[in-house]
């Protein structure tokens, strides 16, 4: 068996909308695979179907070789899940939460305690294991959920927005755990995210989905390459863009606020030429294409980032101009 997950025209139709539309993907064993897309793109719905919580309205999929429709019980035994919403019991201690989970997943009694100790160690919660979860911070809860998802040594781990609403430091920690799991335990990981950096940092391959459909699927590097090069951000006195279009290496010219944004093949080599055309400039910045640029170039839309508290949409473009 080479592929950990295979989907065959996987479809979920709700009353008046198609949340997941004929999804076809093959995820290799040991791979970190990212589903990237804006809110409502169908990421969670896709994961829910693979976890056998939601029944597809069309198509099917296999997880670890088990059919999600015919062998849901085998699928469940072989996967671990960290949901988007918090799902640990507040009124129980961290260790109690893990113990119940171990019993539900039939972790043999003899090794239960050792396994619990192991995962607590891994996520650094050993010292707080006997505290009620309601006294935990958001990051600690997330780590506990991650520990819980790993408790029964799943072959495939599903992470639905693993770092949503966490502070940068905790995020970095969680990313390290995830990388570690993939490297040392050769676990297959399927994660959804709408954070570009997250997908970029962690994933071997990414599928960009929008409105239930896979728009493009490839390694982050190739995707960025496909954008047509690096991004050069210029601040000049003039907003005349025509002059840049004549340069061979420039594939795209856009204006954003006071900035002229160019997509340039091998920007470092062609910078001289660009600067000559630009004339007097106030500032210049070169950076490699980000996944946001990829998303933008395939969908014509930007991914909107939502903060953890929910509601406040913030444009990732802001970061780009501020950086």
């Amino acid at each position, binding site marked *: 068996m080479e592929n950990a997950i295979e989907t065959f025209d996987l479809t979920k139709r709700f009353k008046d909308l198609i949340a997941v539309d004929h999804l076809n993907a093959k995820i290799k064993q040991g791979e970190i695979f990212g589903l990237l897309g804006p809110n409502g793109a169908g990421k969670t719905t896709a994961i829910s179907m693979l976890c056998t919580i939601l*029944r597809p309205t069309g198509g099917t999929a296999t997880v670890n070789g088990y059919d999600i429709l015919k062998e849901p019980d085998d699928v469940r*035994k072989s996967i671990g899940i960290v949901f988007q919403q918090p799902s640990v019991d507040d009124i129980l201690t961290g260790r109690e939460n893990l113990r*119940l*989970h171990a019993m*539900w*997943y039939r972790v043999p009694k003899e090794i239960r305690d050792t396994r619990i100790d192991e995962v607590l160690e891994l996520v650094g919660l050993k010292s707080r294991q006997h505290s009620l979860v309601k006294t935990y911070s958001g990051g600690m809860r997330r780590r506990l959920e991650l520990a819980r998802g790993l408790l029964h040594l799943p072959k495939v781990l599903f992470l639905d927005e693993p770092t949503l609403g966490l502070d940068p430091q905790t995020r970095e920690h969680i990313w390290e755990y995830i990388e570690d799991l993939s490297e040392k335990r050769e676990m297959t990981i399927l994660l959804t995210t709408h954070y570009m950096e997250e997908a970029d940092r962690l994933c071997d391959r990414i599928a960009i989905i929008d409105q239930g459909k896979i728009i493009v699927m490839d390694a982050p590097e190739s995707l960025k390459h496909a954008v047509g090069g690096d991004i050069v951000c210029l601040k000049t006195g003039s907003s005349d863009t025509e002059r840049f279009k004549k340069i061979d290496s420039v594939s795209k010219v856009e204006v954003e606020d006071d900035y002229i944004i160019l997509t340039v093949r091998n920007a470092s080599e062609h910078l001289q030429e660009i600067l000559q055309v630009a004339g007097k400039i106030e500032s210049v910045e070169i950076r490699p294409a980000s996944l946001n640029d990829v998303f933008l170039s395939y969908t014509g839309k930007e991914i909107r980032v939502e903060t953890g508290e929910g509601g406040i949409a913030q444009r990732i473009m802001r970061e780009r101009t501020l950086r």
Partner: protein
Amino acid sequence: MSQAEGIYALWLREFKVFTRERSRVVTSIFTPLLWIFVFGGGLGSAVNIGDVNYQVFVYPGILAMSVLFSSVFFGVYIVWDRKIDILKEVLVAPLSRTSIFVGKVLGGCTDSMIQAFVMLLISFGVGVYLSPSAFLLAILILFFMALSLVSTGLIIGSLMESPEGFNMIISFLVFPLFFFSGALFPLDNLPFWLAAITYIDPVTYGVDGLRTVTIGISRFPLYMDLAVLAVFATVMFTIGTRAFERMT
């Protein structure tokens, strides 16, 4: 049986939550006490039913009430568990839906029976003296009630989309079940329409059975009360397992 430990773990979760939410336990016993000592005691100072004081008469009714309320609420409470994803963690575990239902029912019955036990100890406070056999029969009746009513609550909880419908359940299910059960009044000499509804209300048979074994007043024979309760429990339990199969 591979599911046994899973069911035990489900029960354990409910039991731990119950013992930790002490305020919930105290609240659930406080209201029945008000009914017995304030309502029962107040009305009892002026009213006798037959040759028993009203406070004594109403005691088995309030016993039934405490189990009715706590059992149905326990079940409907899963709406909150579903709203946040606590229940989802269980739903994706390799457990059959029947096991999940059984674990939840056992958890709910345990909660209700602990309360019922405390309420039975209070019997001495209102001058109802229970023989050991009366005590055991009362436990049996209360258990049948808890089993059927927790199942009922879980069925409703599994169908409800959001907690907003909660008040409707209280107004249109729990209170009618309580008021039509004859918990507060004798069933003899009722106007026809009222008598007809009380006969349909399954809680009536619980109240009647409890009244029979605790204070010796009965409308129906005890075997009939037990039979109706057993059938009601079986039906609700069966529907409940189906409802959980279908829940997403």
